[in-house]
């Protein structure tokens, strides 16, 4: 008789337009018994879907406050 020793963990990863599903199931199988029965823990963990990092690229703008002053510009 087999027992699910840990709740199944499912991860769905979406990246670059592809979807990858990782399914991890841990079973305990009793091989002494001709009738193999697999049971599963009814507590199923919620699916973790990994969100991509924010792909928005912000503008990198330096700080232009400065102590140095320039006398610049000629009247035309």
């Amino acid at each position, binding site marked *: 008789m087999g027992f699910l020793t840990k709740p199944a963990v499912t991860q769905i990863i979406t990246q670059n337009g592809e979807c990858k599903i990782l399914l991890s199931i841990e079973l305990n199988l009793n091989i002494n018994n001709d009738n193999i029965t697999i049971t599963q823990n009814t507590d199923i963990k919620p699916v973790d879907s990994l969100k991509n990092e924010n792909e928005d690229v912000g503008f990198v703008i330096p700080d232009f406050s400065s102590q140095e002053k*320039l006398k*610049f510009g000629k009247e035309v």
Partner: protein
Amino acid sequence: MAIGFDVGTYNLVSCRRTADNNFKTEREVNSFFEVSLEDPLAFNAMRSVNVPLIERKDLGVAYAFGEAAVRIAYTMNKDMKRPMEGGCLNPRERNAQQMLSYMIHGMLEGANPQEMVYYSVPSNAINEETDADYHDKVLQAIFRAATDENGQNLQLRANPINEGLALIYAELHDKALTGAGISFGAGMVNVCFAIFGVPVFSFALVNSGDWIDKMSAKATGETPTFINKEKTKVNLLENSSSLVHRTIKAQYEIMISKTINGIKQGLEKVGNKGRTEEPIDVVIAGGTASAMGFDELFAKAFNESKIPLNINRVVRPGEPLYSVAKGCLIAAEFACRQ
């Protein structure tokens, strides 16, 4: 009060009103070079003749700016560096943004707190990859970081305006701000077609003054600096016996042809939105348009191109170098009105 500011590849131009409502314009060359502080002779000589300088002892260098710096760099055989290239920030110049910031802040001296400022920006080019949005964001940050003589932030109300549109504001007020504005700068040609001051379409081409210098130099074996000087002597309506002048004229014709093709494509894209009942005026300005015979050459090419647009006349402002800044000022003044 308001300020108009043309942030050009070669020239920085600011424009304000005088007390008697005339235009007060200031200009400088958008250029700098680096001087090592290990050479105090050069540094002190420049300081004694009032070359605009910023000393950075922490870096062991000083920076010299503007037209005076250009003249000294030429005699000292130093390379001038330019914060902008092709109409936008120069990605190959690592100090570009900071140097441009020093120069713009220097020309904002005397600005009032919360003053309205309109500065020129290009469109994205249709013949090369440019990032006009990033360029605009950097300029906005520069203007908003401006301080008074006590180091207090002026909180300037800084806004962008398309360079071609600025020309329409400057020169077509009596035409209900309807027409085309074409700025032939050093780095870019900027085109805007507007109806009642609202842009219908705009675009840019990275084929302007610097490109003419480079291509003519390549064809004739001369340097771009030499070509740049010769451009002031060439007459675009004459068939010169000089190879250099003929080459320069040919490059001008190519630039005008590309510009007119761009306008044709723009009009096709906007369809009925670009239709006007009355013939329109076309304003042409910018340093590259200052060559002798340019407006006649342009008008001739335009009329022969069969563009679906009726042209009333081609307008060249009395001071084509300063017209964009003037248009920026007028736009800023409109924005100030309640």
